[in-house]
């Protein structure tokens, strides 16, 4: 089973996770920029984070045979902090980088006017840079948030088929599907979606334009949830081809819209004799 996790925050994960992910079949991932749990207080803090997503994290991933790309943006939560919003002015010089495959995560957190402004501005940046957009749908007041998100996308210059609506569930999948966007589902241990509910949605909606991710981060989450969905699909009677479509071909097709995906990587161990993040003395 070859797996592409289209949404995972590896900055918060360990090398044990990378090793387990490779063993589970994960060969590629996309790391969206997001909130760190701890609020940032200046644009410079974002720049260091963006640099890590463009440099150090792909290097770490490559040690374990995993291709790493990223999406960059001002996240919805910090779009409300005037200390952070100047990041929007700096994004153009980051969005030209070779491993940036979308603008994201953008979208709504609390549906404020500041979030409206940041979402519209960043959909425009995506259109200007030939990039698709990864759009987070809110945790609170989700269906209303989805509707408002779809409205803003309709008013933007970015066509819906270049948008991935993420963190969907049973209550939002139909309207998201009707919008023409790609459909993202985050599988979590306790919150968001789980494997069996995901299988049920795949049964009713099919596999077209559906992406499944672990969204693993610094909270209770599991970087192997993509594999677990693949196993649950097979157990439920889906074919290997169905699994490959959801877990590999769909994310490749969506992020491939950027023209910037590079999925060839040497196998781990070919890079360094130690096959580890060498910090010396190992």
């Amino acid at each position: 089973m070859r797996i592409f996790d289209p949404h995972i925050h590896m900055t918060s994960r360990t090398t044990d996770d990378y090793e387990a992910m490779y063993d589970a079949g994960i060969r590629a991932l996309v790391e969206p920029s997001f909130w760190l749990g701890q609020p940032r207080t200046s644009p410079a803090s974002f720049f260091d984070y963006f640099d890590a997503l463009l440099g150090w994290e792909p290097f770490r991933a490559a040690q374990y045979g995993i291709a790493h790309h990223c999406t960059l943006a001002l996240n919805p939560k910090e779009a409300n902090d005037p200390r952070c919003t100047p990041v929007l002015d700096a994004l153009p010089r980051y969005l030209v980088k070779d491993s940036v495959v979308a603008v994201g995560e953008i979208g709504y957190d609390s549906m404020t006017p500041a979030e409206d402004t940041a979402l519209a501005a960043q959909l425009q940046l995506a259109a200007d840079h030939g990039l698709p957009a990864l759009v987070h749908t809110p945790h609170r007041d989700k269906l209303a948030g989805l509707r408002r998100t779809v409205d803003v996308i309709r008013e933007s210059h970015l066509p819906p088929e270049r948008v991935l609506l993420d963190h969907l569930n049973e209550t939002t999948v139909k309207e998201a599907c009707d919008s023409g966007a790609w459909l993202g589902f985050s599988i979590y241990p306790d919150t968001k979606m789980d494997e069996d509910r995901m299988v049920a949605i795949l049964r009713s909606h099919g596999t077209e334009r559906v992406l499944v991710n672990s969204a693993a981060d610094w909270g209770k989450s599991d970087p192997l949830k993509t594999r677990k969905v693949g196993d649950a699909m097979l157990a439920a009677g889906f074919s290997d081809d169905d699994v490959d479509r959801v877990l590999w071909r769909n994310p490749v097709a969506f992020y491939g819209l950027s023209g910037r995906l590079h999925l060839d990587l040497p196998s781990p161990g070919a890079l360094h004799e130690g096959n580890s993040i060498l910090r010396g003395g190992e």
Partner: protein
Amino acid sequence: MTTTRDELAGRLGAAARTWLDEALTEAAHAADTPSDPTGPYLSASWELRFASAGRHCGPEHADSVRILLLHQARAGTDTLTRLYQHGTAAERRAVLLALLSLVPGPEALPLVADALRTNDTRLVAAAVGPYAATHLDQHSWRHAVLKCLFTGVPVEAVADLPRRARGDTALARMLADYADERSAAGRPLPADLPRVLTLTVPPEES
């Protein structure tokens, strides 16, 4: 060492050649009009080309294309520093590889020092090139050699290694201590360590 424009053009497809021609024209324009107004977050058009060279010309040609652009723009220390600080690891690598031919003195050493502080082997390998061989002080250079051994960067990457290592008793002592530490831990020696140790023998003994 720098690939010429003609050599490079011969290896690129038609679309990439056209892109390169445009990029070089923009870089040449920047060289002639160095006072192009740029805000704190704005970049000159050739600098955006510098960033996107990999996907337009292929990752295997990215170093050569970027270095050619730096030459065409006659990038000085300020520009190189900005591009390094704003760059991905691949862009930083190209800046490091171009230093010797673009910066006559030691002014760009802070970039080398920055790269040597990372654990990214792509950057460490590019940092120990000929610019470091020419300008890096002996203490920092010894640590750079040791870092290559620690992180698995082949010492072939260290420019001018035999000349700078010859007779360096402090480096020899550091290498021997490192070998002792590895042995005490029951771990194998890096394959390059005995080779470098041999190079530290003073001329009269070799």
